[in-house]
């Protein structure tokens, strides 16, 4: 019975990882850009939400709603001013630029917010739980997983059922031809990064309410997000939704055996998938 509960907890944890990964998966799918600062952007967004909470006294959900357009704008400008300049066939420049951004963000946050652990005040929500028959689960983790499913569903609808999504996919397939049809690839890329930052805001909201965060935890979130993306298969959003829980379940199962093995078993699950299915479980894009 304890194992059933462990698996359920892992699935819920995986919801958070899927949220971490959704923004990364979206950006990769559209412009083949891998953002090494993704984890630090999540942490920075959590700090921004915290600042809004402290200044306005609103709850974290409303604060995230205020932070989201700001972060959308940040993502848009980041892509237009910095990342668009380094996109190309060579993967090294974007990788190095985002690595630089990661180090700059971590240390900038350290100066601005100190190394203290912070938390978003969820108003008692973090202590509530529901009995779903098989196990008792926290309300907040359940909301996280539900949000991940809804976010990925909406992103998929956006990609496959709207004109903007068509432009995203066309630019992803062939930017030159897309621009002949009146699409400005640079603007499309900027919109995609802005959109990814909105998803990042959502991920930051749940990260900040569920656990403590400090400026140094970004890289680890990045790794979990990457593992979810790669396990799920490159460029597939539904794959990413599956990848998060796989890493989550591996972590909780490992932790159940020995608390020190939590992170390690997540990594090992990732490496095993990599041996058996190098392109992930549900691959879509060809890298």
């Amino acid at each position: 019975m304890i194992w059933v509960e462990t698996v359920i907890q892992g699935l819920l944890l995986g919801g958070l990882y899927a949220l971490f990964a959704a923004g990364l998966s979206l950006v990769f799918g559209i412009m083949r850009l891998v953002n090494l600062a993704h984890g630090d952007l999540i942490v920075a967004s959590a700090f921004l939400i915290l600042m809004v909470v402290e200044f306005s006294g609103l709850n974290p959900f409303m604060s995230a709603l205020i932070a989201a357009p700001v972060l959308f704008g940040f993502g848009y400008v980041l892509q237009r001013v910095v990342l668009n300049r380094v996109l190309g066939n060579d993967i090294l420049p974007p990788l190095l630029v985002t690595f630089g951004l990661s180090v700059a963000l971590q240390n900038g946050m350290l100066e601005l917010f100190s190394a203290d652990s912070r938390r978003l005040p969820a108003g008692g929500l973090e202590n509530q739980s529901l009995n779903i028959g098989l196990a008792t689960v926290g309300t907040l983790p359940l909301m996280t997983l539900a949000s991940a499913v809804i976010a990925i569903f909406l992103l998929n609808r956006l990609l496959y059922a709207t004109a903007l999504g068509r432009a995203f996919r066309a630019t992803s397939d062939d930017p030159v031809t897309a621009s002949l049809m009146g699409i400005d690839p640079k603007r499309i890329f900027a919109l995609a990064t802005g959109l990814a930052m909105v998803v990042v805001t959502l991920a930051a909201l749940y990260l900040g309410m569920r656990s403590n965060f400090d400026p140094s935890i970004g890289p680890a979130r990045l790794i979990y997000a990457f593992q979810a993306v790669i396990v799920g298969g490159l460029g597939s959003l539904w794959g990413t939704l599956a990848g998060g829980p796989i890493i989550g379940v591996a972590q909780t199962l490992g932790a159940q055996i020995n608390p020190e093995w939590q992170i390690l078993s997540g990594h090992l699950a990732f490496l095993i998938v990599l041996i058996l299915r190098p392109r992930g479980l549900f691959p879509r894009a060809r890298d």
Partner: protein
Amino acid sequence: MQAHVTTRTRASTIAAFAAIALILIGFALPAFASRVMIQDMFFILTMLMLAQLWNLIAGYGGMVSVGQQAFVGIGAYAMFGGVLIWGWDPVAAIILGGFAALALSVPMAFFAFRLHGAYFAIGTWVVAEVTRLLVAQWRALGGGTGTSLPRHVTANIWGVDWVADLFDVRQAAARDILAYWLALALCILTIGAIYWLLRSRTGLALAAVRDNDEAARSVGVDARRVKWMVFLAAGFMTGLVGALIYMQTARISPDAAFSVTTWTAYVIFIVVIGGIGRLEGPILGVLVFWGLQSAFADYGSWYLFALGVIAIVVMIFAPRGLWGLVADRTGLALFPVQRRLILPER
């Protein structure tokens, strides 16, 4: 005189003589330099080696690894293991560190070579994290908190007494000098070996694979073999450097020895700022890095923030680094690897 192909230029001949002079001065340095300067030189030399090795696999080989800290860490830990568990002399145990890193680079290559581009980077990072977490379970070497080399070991390293007598210094200073000499020798060996490799057929094959994998294979280059060879060699050397660094520090912990920031991010910044894909780049880069660090280290995190921003700016406006700017203006190449056809004069 017949037409022939050469890589030599007048600048490179001058550079070769200057290098020999610098090496001689380098070995004589402990006779007149302060202990702080020796320590600074040790830092510069070790970071330079790490930068050259990363430059070899990423800049020449196109394999952008973010997991080099795995080799530094495992090399250092194997050295500590050799000393603390099997009672080896630390200098001998450095070799053990190299072989431990070589042993790790085989499974790492096995995993990472299944991934391409940015996913290769993350794959190597994950393997490094796995190694860190496993090493942190190694109770005999202090587990997660780490351990130190005991005093009776550091005092009896081969050659320390001799160095102490030679320069009439204390044992701790003598250990720094010994570490510095080893770093200098290893650094000459590393740069020499990389330069030799790049001028050889294998180096040409490596550059061809980086520039166009398929085209290289179509003219008969065994891309896989070349990549494996270079990755393993760089892993071995990085392990040696890691072991050497921690012989000098004499104190180790998993978080420090497997730090992605220190052993990979800084190393990447050094290469990027100096100029990726050329041997001169890391040399210039490490000097800039050291200069910035000595000038601004008091500003703590702001300094690192600025370093990240500088890396971004350099990547956008001077993607081939500071040395790239120099070389584009002057055509200067101190370590030329480009093959030029020299026609007989008429």
